């Protein structure tokens, strides 16, 4: 039983990990075919996993409705919204428009999803401003440097900024292209080494806590 729970997953991880790492160095079409097949498997597993996710979602909200917890009306809305969209989607074969004419599913898409998502994204601008007001303080010399760089980039990225301070355009390009790009590369090198080391640990079974924590 322990072998099934611990050893078998570790063995599968090791074999697939090594095969997929090796695949990168093999240009043969068979290798590319393997990559495509594995990705398709992942898609299929992902499809089944979605059932798991939706079950969890339904379960959590059904419990809320049953127990009449605070805000249970929202859970009811979730059920209505989800089932309603599924029905309308199936009715129109998942098409937002047919021969240029908008379907009812297209209506749901254009007049609920599009404005709702747009609204959420637009809130970013407000949050950026409030976060900047709260946090952009020249508490130290380093913070002051960051502050100045941020102001230059903000000026340089809009016509009004360039109009008021003509050099800000070139300066912001330099900051983005040289300072920003080099720092990001440095972070990326660290991240990549960390990711490779973690992958090695997982492939060779050194790191196993992702299987459910604990030691044997």
């Amino acid at each position: 039983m322990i072998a099934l729970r611990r050893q078998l997953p570790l063995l599968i991880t090791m074999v697939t990990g090594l095969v997929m790492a090796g695949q990168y160095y093999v240009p043969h079409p068979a290798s590319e075919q393997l990559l495509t097949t594995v990705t398709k498997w992942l898609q299929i597993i992902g499809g089944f996993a979605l059932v798991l996710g939706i079950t969890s979602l339904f379960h959590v909200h059904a419990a809320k409705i049953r127990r009449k917890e605070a805000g249970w009306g929202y859970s009811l809305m979730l059920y209505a919204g989800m089932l309603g969209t599924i029905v309308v989607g199936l009715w129109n074969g998942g098409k937002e428009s047919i021969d240029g004419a908008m379907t009812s599913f297209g209506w749901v898409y254009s007049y609920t999803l599009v404005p709702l998502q747009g609204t959420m994204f637009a809130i970013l601008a407000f949050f950026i401003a409030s976060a900047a007001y709260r946090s952009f303080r020249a508490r130290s010399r380093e913070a002051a440097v960051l502050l100045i760089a941020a102001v230059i980039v903000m000026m340089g990225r809009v016509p009004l900024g360039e109009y008021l301070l003509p050099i800000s355009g070139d300066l912001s390009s330099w900051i983005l292209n040289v300072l920003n790009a080099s720092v990001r590369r440095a972070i990326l090198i660290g991240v990549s080494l960390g990711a490779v080391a973690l992958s090695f640990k997982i492939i060779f079974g050194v790191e196993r806590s992702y299987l459910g924590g604990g030691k044997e």
Partner: protein
Amino acid sequence: MTFAERMLRIDRRIIFLVIGLCTLFPLLFPVGLPIRISSEVRGVFDYIDNLPEGSVFLLSLDFDPASKPELYPQAIAILRHAFNKNVRVIAMTLWVSGTGLADSIVSQTAKEAGKENGKDYVFLGWSPGGSAVILNMGQDLYTAFPADYGGKATKGLPVLAGVQNLRDVTYAVSLGAGNPGVEAWYVFGKDKYKFELGGGCTGVMAPGLYPLLRSGQINGLIGGLRGAAEYETLIGQKGKAVAGMDAQSATHLAIIVLVAICNVFYFTMRRQQRRQERMGS
């Protein structure tokens, strides 16, 4: 609590109101400040501009409605340019929630340019698999997309004549709002199947893609609304992005002023605290 401290803890809804007004007024009363063209946007423009007639241009609209304000104007401007140059346009998306939006963008611009579906352009729609779709297209475009968004078989479409896989694409541009997006098109597309690649993204993502640009992995980058405005200026058809630049100018300036005010209050508060400490000791 001193005045400075009170101002530093100002209700954030006041800040929201300032930003809201700074966005609204320029949209109602546009000024139309001149827009300087950056080399990264020119990179994409020049490449499309120099494509011979009939070349295969692939546009992947990898975004959902959330990023519409920034990427929609980019897509419209690029498509107008491509249709104007009479290149064959293959449009698609890797984001399922962006399919409807992508379809409306492509059909709207094609109609405007008088282009025929299947002959001058095709919208392939969405196929499951995220980045794996790029790999599938690299092997065989017709396996990845057996039918276009309208359900017509892709094999035999005049616009795809001579196109078997991604190797037959002359230029590809991914307008990405996340993953899969520009990076995925480089790693799984250009790197493997050797076509030229350009990118477009939201303003927040642009700094993150500069390393790709600097290393030549992409030949140009359209960043956010600003990038879209530059592209609109380059093709001489000013649209939503140029109109939005005044609003963006005003909000950037408002944030700069807010940050300056916050620092003034911060230093005032610090000075007061130091004075109190000195008096206390």
